[in-house]
């Protein structure tokens, strides 16, 4: 055993004392010198690219702006823009990038009819063809695909069904989400049944993007979003559906209660209680009061009290009053209980008066705090 170790040490030593070691270090030195040079070159390239972009932008921006002012704002033209007059070399990648960014800025800040005209201008400059090409070759470039999809959505250009299906089944979530956004923006309500069953796997940011895509369309119908609630799915999915229900004020108490009582994910139950409150689920008041006595987690309790403040119609004031009066319970609970009592005012006026009469100095402070007009969040 010992001799083996000695042997190993000996061989290591002889390596360090022999020719191999200096050569190795020299190579490493040369490598790091080389990499350092690459770094410098890289920095220069970044600087140059930035400089080039700026100089192109400085040239293109005034031309494009005046063009938009003249044809869209003055002439009210909606299509068939005399693009040749711009004399831009749109085949050049840098020009394309600059034009695209400028037009995006315009489209995102100017809306209404004029905004629509700008989308047409974007389309007529040939951005649709390139985007169509990119999404067909989705495999090679994630950013290009995502960008092209959002461009196509802006231009409201149709995409072939098979290409869309392929994109929606992509293994990359980014691509799937942008395909969903495209569908929602372009087809609106018709896309709900295609998109909503497929959103599993998205994260909360994706959910927010999809939410924004839906609420920024002019959809006002009565599509039943609640059919997609499912406690076994992720929080992001359920949260998205509940946010949409709240936005369109669609109450489905049964579905929400299924989430409340499920043990899958406490975040989902919390959000479901919150949604009950925001959707003014009047029939859930008694049920929440009962649930309060079963539930042990503080977060759930606070959420229930808050919801009772929103949806309550006097059936929960006993509970709220008891929570407030119980000086041994947590301050956060008491604060919210009082606020919810105040929120149920027509029903709770007598109780509130009684509380104010009975209350000691300490609790009076609590009442003042909750009622204070300058305290907005408790």
């Amino acid at each position, binding site marked *: 055993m010992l001799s083996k170790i000695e042997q190993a*040490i000996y061989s*290591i*030593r002889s390596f360090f004392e022999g020719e191999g*070691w*200096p050569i190795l*270090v*020299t190579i*490493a*030195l040369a490598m*790091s*010198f080389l*990499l*350092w040079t690459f*770094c*410098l070159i*890289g*920095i220069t390239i*970044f*600087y140059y690219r*930035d400089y080039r972009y700026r100089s192109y932008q400085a040239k293109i921006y005034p031309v494009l702006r005046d063009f938009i002012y003249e044809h869209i704002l003055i002439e009210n033209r909606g299509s068939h823009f005399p693009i040749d007059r711009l004399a831009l070399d749109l085949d050049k990648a840098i020009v394309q990038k600059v034009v695209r960014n400028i037009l995006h800025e315009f489209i*995102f800040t100017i809306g209404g009819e004029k905004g629509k005209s700008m989308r047409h201008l974007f389309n007529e400059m040939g951005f649709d063809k390139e985007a169509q090409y990119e999404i067909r070759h989705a495999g090679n470039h*994630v*950013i290009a695909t*995502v*960008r092209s999809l*959002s461009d196509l959505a802006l231009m409201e250009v149709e995409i072939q069904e098979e290409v869309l299906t392929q994109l929606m089944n992509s293994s990359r979530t*980014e691509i799937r989400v*942008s395909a969903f956004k495209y569908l929602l923006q372009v087809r609106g309500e018709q896309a709900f049944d295609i998109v909503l069953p497929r959103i599993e796997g998205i*994260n*909360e*940011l*994706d959910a*927010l*993007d999809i*939410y*924004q895509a839906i609420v920024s369309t002019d959809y006002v119908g009565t599509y039943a979003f609640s059919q997609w609630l499912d406690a076994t799915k992720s929080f992001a999915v359920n949260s998205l559906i509940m*946010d949409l229900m709240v936005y369109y004020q669609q109450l489905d108490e049964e579905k929400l209660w299924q989430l409340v009582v499920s043990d899958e994910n406490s975040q989902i139950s919390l959000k479901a209680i919150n949604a009950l409150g925001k959707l003014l689920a009047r029939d859930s008041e008694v049920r929440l009061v009962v649930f309060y006595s079963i539930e042990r*987690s*503080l*977060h759930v309790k606070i959420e229930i009290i808050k919801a009772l403040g929103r949806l309550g119609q006097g059936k929960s004031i006993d509970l709220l009053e008891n929570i407030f009066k119980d000086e*041994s*319970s*947590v*301050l*956060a609970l008491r*604060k919210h209980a009082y606020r919810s009592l105040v929120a149920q005012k027509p029903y709770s006026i007598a109780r509130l008066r009684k509380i104010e009469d009975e209350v000691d100095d*300490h609790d009076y*402070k*609590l009442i*003042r*705090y909750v009622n*204070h007009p*300058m*305290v*907005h*969040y*408790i």
Partner: protein
Amino acid sequence: MKHFIFSIEFVFGFYCLLLLIVYVMLFRMSSISIRKNLRKRKSRRVQTLMESEIAPGVSIVAPAYNESVTIVNNVRSLMTLFYPRYEVVIVNDGSKDDTLEKLIKEFDLVQVDFLVDYLVPCKEIKAIYKSRDISHKRLTIVDKVNGGSKADAVNAGINVASFPYILNTDVDCVLANDTLVQLMEAVLDANERVIAVGATLRMSNSSYVDSGMLVEAALPKQILARFQEMEYIRSYLLGKMGWNYLNCIPNVSGGLGLFDKEILISAGGYDSHSLGEDMEMVTRMCMTMCDNNQKYEVKYIPQTLCWTEGPDSLKMLTRQRIRWARGLMQIMRTHRKAFLNPKYKKFGLIVFPYNAIFEFFAPIMEILGIFFYLYLILTHGINWPMAILLLIFVYMFSVFLTSFSILLDNYVYKYYKRRKDIVRLCLTAFIEPFLYHPIIVYSSIKGYIQELFGKKHAWGEMKRKGTLSPLPSDRIKK
């Protein structure tokens, strides 16, 4: 004797080799995670979050102690961040100057009745002020008894804050307008629960700052501040972004960090006895998550969102670094049970050992290495050509790494508008190992010695709570 010397050489050699491997890995990993971040940014409109009504709320908590001169501008700049739903909680930590009076006058503050849950320990909160102006309804000023540490003040802010996320910053930090949007985007764009997010910090020393707002970033003119800027760029873009790839970030700096309030509270809040309270907090949050078998992420984003005033005198710099070194040592001691403890998963097996071996021991190894070199020189046991060759290599490698992090920084965004600045920064990489690095090593060693033999800090009071939904303590003051 010869065997003995050889085994010392072997230990040093092995250490250096490991370090080299770590750096090469960081080089690779940081490029990948920065690239990933930028791709995401390119393919998405940042404004979507800003314009969304379902954006989660954030409480900005900023402690102020004797900041009378700058407080008004700084608070004003915090009030102009771009985000739909946030509040600003300024904690006046018993300032001896007129910080509070200035705030009261400027923002038309009045005292309000209040009750506070002391969810995390802090000194007594004396009063809470709100503004009479509706336009400042997001502002809350907490006046508390001085707790002697930033940790105590931040804890007070956490107790008062009402949103689920806490952005912890210093009032003298200058934040980018889109700080909240960027950080919250990182929180939401994840598959696990994100308990903390940080971003790159830089020096504001020579940047043009007008009324608490950054107008133009510039490289610090003063050499010490410039060294620090370079050190920050390297440690954030190469170090933090590299570890970000493995979800193994050891620390979210105290200058700018967004935290999940629930986890902050379950972990017991900031430790006012710690000298490195930011790192200690993240350590404890990670351990709390592991204790409760919860998956989590700590993230970093490469964008610079915060400009802070770096110490520009040798005395101030060494004092700061001594404190950091002591803080690090405290963490190594208090949380040593995490070392190679499989229960703490990645944290116990990678983050903590890395911190211990490469962050904590590095200065010690360097000093020992120098002594060993001296010994070899004195006993003529040195192979000069080889030693010089090695030295040149190490030097070149360090210059390369620094330049690489500058490259990454430029990849993210071109922060310096003047070309001169970038050339200067690249040149600084050459003198840093001689001038700046020794100061850091010296301060660290001094810190360790002070921590070992110097004034004792109270250790025991590490409040830790086991569960993730703690019942807030019901102690109510005033």
